[in-house]
C-alpha cells in the first residue's frame, strides 16, 4: 500500500484553509492537511462537519474564504474547476441521462480532443475495469443503482486524472452491494495507484477502504490516522464514540502518573486507565473501552480493573451475544460474548464480575457526546 513507502510525497496540501458561507460562522475552521500521492484518504464525519465542503473546495466548486490549496505544488485557488483535471464521483451518480454509457465515458475524452479510435479503446478498457462491457449502449435509466455507480466510477477514471474525489458514492446503495463496491473501489485504487479522496459518514466504510482516515467534527480534523490506530487509539472522546462501538465511563481524575492515571467513578470505585487526554487532578474525564476488551467472571480475574456489574439485557446477534450491563451505576455498558463462551446459567438481574486491562481503557476529555 502507498502508505508504507516513506518516500511517498505530497500530492494535495491544504494550508490554513477556512470556509464560511454566511460571514458569521466557519464551516471549515482551520484545515492543514497533506494528502500523499497514491493514498486512499477518507474524510469521515457527521453531516455538517465540513468534510464535503473540503472536497468541494478541492474540486473547485467552492472557493476557500482563506488559505491555500495546492495540487502537485501548483496553487489551485484561482484554477477553475474544469481545468483542474480531477475526477469526481457523485452520490447520485450524475450520469448524463440522455447519453448511453459509452457516450458518458467518451465525454471527458472528447473534450480532451482525443481521436476516435483512442476514445473507443479507452472506453472499452474502462468498462472492462468495472466489468460492464456488455452494457455500453444502455442508457443510465435502464441500469441498476450498482451498475450506474460503476459507470460513474469508470467515467471519473477514464481520463486518467491523478486525483479522484468521491462524495459518498455508495450512499444510495443497499448494504450488501455497498460492501461489495467498497472492495471493488479499493481494488481499483490498488491496481491503478491513483490518489483517492473519499467522503463518507459511514465509519465502517472508512475503516474498510482507507489508508488513512481524517475524522471531522465542527470544521476541524479531530484525528487523522490509519484505520486500526483510529479504532484502537482514539485521541479524544468524539473519535472514540464515532468510530466503532464504545463504552464510556464518566469519572474524576484523582491521580496522573506518567502514562497512567487513576479515575474515581461516581460510585466511588477507582479505575486505572491510560492517560490520553486528561486534565489535572479533580477534573472530569470520560473513559473509553471497546466492548470486546471487557472480560467477564473468571477471565476478569487477571485484570487490573475489576468491578461488579448487573446484567440488564441479552441481545442476540447470531455469531455473538451482547450483554447490556449496569456498571458502577452507569447503564448502557455493552460486552460482546461469543456464543460458545456464553454461560447458560446467566439471566438478567445476575451480578457479574467485569474486568479490563489498564492499557485498554483510555481516559479522554469529558465532552458529552451523543453517539
Amino acid at each position, binding site marked *: 500500500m502507498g502508505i508504507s513507502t516513506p518516500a511517498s510525497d505530497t500530492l494535495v496540501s491544504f494550508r490554513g484553509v477556512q470556509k464560511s458561507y454566511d460571514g458569521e460562522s466557519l464551516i471549515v475552521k482551520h484545515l492543514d492537511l497533506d494528502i500523499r500521492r497514491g493514498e486512499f484518504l477518507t474524510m469521515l464525519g457527521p453531516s455538517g462537519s465540513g468534510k464535503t465542503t473540503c472536497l468541494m473546495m478541492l474540486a473547485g466548486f467552492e472557493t476557500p474564504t482563506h488559505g491555500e490549496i495546492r495540487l502537485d505544488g501548483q496553487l489551485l485557488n484561482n484554477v477553475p474547476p474544469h481545468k483542474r483535471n*480531477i475526477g469526481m464521483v457523485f*452520490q447520485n451518480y*450524475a*450520469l448524463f441521462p*440522455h447519453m448511453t454509457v459509452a457516450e458518458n465515458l467518451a465525454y*471527458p475524452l472528447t*473534450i*480532451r480532443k482525443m481521436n476516435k479510435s483512442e476514445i473507443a479503446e479507452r472506453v472499452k478498457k474502462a468498462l472492462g475495469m468495472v466489468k460492464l462491457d456488455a452494457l455500453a449502449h444502455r442508457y443510465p435509466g435502464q441500469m441498476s443503482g450498482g451498475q450506474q455507480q460503476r459507470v460513474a466510477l469508470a467515467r471519473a477514471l477514464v481520463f486518467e486524472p491523478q486525483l479522484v474525489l468521491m462524495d459518498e458514492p455508495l450512499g444510495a446503495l443497499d448494504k450488501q452491494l455497498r460492501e461489495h463496491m467498497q472492495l471493488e473501489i479499493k481494488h481499483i485504487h490498488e491496481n491503478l495507484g491513483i490518489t483517492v479522496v473519499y467522503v463518507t459518514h459511514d465509519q465502517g466504510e472508512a475503516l474498510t477502504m482507507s489508508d488513512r482516515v481524517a475524522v471531522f467534527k465542527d470544521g476541524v480534523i479531530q484525528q487523522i490516522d490509519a484505520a486500526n490506530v483510529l479504532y484502537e487509539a482514539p485521541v479524544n472522546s468524539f473519535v472514540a464514540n464515532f468510530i466503532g462501538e464504545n463504552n464510556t465511563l464518566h469519572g474524576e481524575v484523582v491521580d496522573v502518573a506518567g502514562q497512567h492515571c487513576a479515575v474515581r467513578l461516581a460510585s466511588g470505585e477507582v479505575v486505572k486507565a491510560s492517560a490520553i487526554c486528561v486534565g489535572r487532578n479533580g477534573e472530569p474525564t470520560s473513559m473509553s473501552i471497546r466492548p470486546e476488551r471487557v472480560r467477564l467472571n473468571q477471565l476478569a480475574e487477571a485484570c487490573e480493573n475489576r468491578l461488579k456489574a448487573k446484567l440488564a439485557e441479552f441481545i442476540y446477534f447470531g455469531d455473538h451475544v451482547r450483554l447490556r450491563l449496569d456498571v458502577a451505576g452507569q447503564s448502557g455498558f455493552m460486552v460482546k460474548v461469543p456464543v460458545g463462551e456464553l454461560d447458560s446459567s446467566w439471566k438478567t438481574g445476575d451480578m457479574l464480575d467485569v474486568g479490563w486491562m489498564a492499557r485498554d481503557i483510555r481516559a479522554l476529555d469529558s465532552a458529552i457526546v451523543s453517539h
Partner: protein
Amino acid sequence: MNAPLTAADGESLKVKLARERRNKQLKAIALVAPLALFLLLTFLVPIAMLLKRSVDNPEVITYLPQTSAEIASWDRRGLPSEAVFAAMARDLTVAKEQKTVSEISKRLNMDISGFRSLIQRSARKMPLEVAAGESVRDQFIAMDERWGDPDHWHVIAKNAKSWTPYYLYSSLDLRETKAGTPELAPEEERAFLSIFGRTLWMSMWITLISVLLGYPIAYWLANLPARKSNLLMILVLLPFWTSVLVRVASWIVLLQQEGLINSALMGLGIIGEPLQLAFNRTGVYIAMVHILLPFVILPAYSVMKSIPPTYMRAAISLGDHPFAAFWKIYFPQTVAGVAAGALLVFIMCMGYYITPALLGGPQEQMVSYYVAFYTNVTINWGMAAALGSLLLVATMTLYAVYSKLVGANKLSLG
C-alpha cells in the same frame, strides 16, 4: 396432473380470480364513469357535431325534396327534364306555404349570388297554373330567364345531397368545378389561406418570443433558494389570476398612442412622435406573449427543478467549460419541458380570439375571429364549423409532427 387448481370450497381458482378481477374493474369503471360521461357530453359530442356541421348540407334536400329526387337522373347536359321543373314547382309551392323559402334561397345564394331573389320571386308566383300540353319549363323560363341557365340547375343538383365539401373548400379558398373536383378560387376571392398562414406565422413568433423570454426566467427561478423562488413564482402566476379582458384593456391603456409608454418616452425626449404600439402586430405580440409566458415558464421550471446541480458539476469536473456543459448536458434535459410549454403556447395561440380582436388591426385577425364572425354576424354555421374543424386538424397535425420530433413519451407537462 394438470387438473385445474381449486379453492377450499371446490370452486376453480381461475374462476375465483376472474370474478375478483371483474369486481375491481367494475369499481374502476364506476369511479371513472361520471367524468367520462361529462367529457362525452361536453367535449366529444360537440366536436363531433362541429365536424358534422362543417359538411352538413340539409337545406336543398329537405326543402326541395321532389326536385332533389328528380334531378338525380339529370345527365348534366343542357337543361333538366320537364319532370324536374314540375317537381320544382311543387316544392316551391309547399315551401311558400311552410315559409321555408328563405332557407333555400340563402343556401343557394352562397353558390351563385342572385339566386336568392330568383327563388323568392319565383316562389311568390306559385302555384303555377299549367294548362294541358304546356311546358312547365317554358313557364319557368318566361318567369325569369335565369331558369334557362344550366349553371343554376347545376348548383341545385350539386346541393341535392345531405353533405357538401363546399364549406371546407371555401375555408381553403377552393371551389368546386362542375366536374366536382376542387380548384383554387380566383385570386381576388381568396381570403382564408392567408388568414391560416397569418395565424400560423403569428403563433410561431409568439411561441418563439415566449420561449426566449421564459427559458432564462425558468432557469433563474429553478436555481434560486426555495423561499425566494416561491415568492417570484407568485409574480409569474399573478397574471393568471386576472381576467384576460382586464389584462388586454390595461395593455391598451399602456400601449395606445397617448398611452403611458408613449407619453413617458416622449416626456423623456427619447422619441419625437408616438410609436405605433397598439392596434397593430406589435401590440398583439406584446400582449399575447405576456398572457402566454407562464405556460412556457411553468413546465420549463418544473423540468429544470428536477435536474440536480450535480449533472453540471460532473460535466465541469470532467473538464468541460461551464457554457459548453450547459449546452451539452443541461439544455438537452430541459428540451422536453420547454417543448411541452412551447406546444401549449402554440396551440393556445392558434385559437386565440380576444387579444387580436381588441389589440390588433384588420391585418392581425386570426382564424378564430372569422369563426366568431360567421357564428355571430352572418349566422353561417357551416363556415364557422368548417374553419373550426380545419383549425382542429391543423393543431392535431402540428402536434403529431411535434411529438415525432421531440418524442411524445419525452413530452412532459411537469
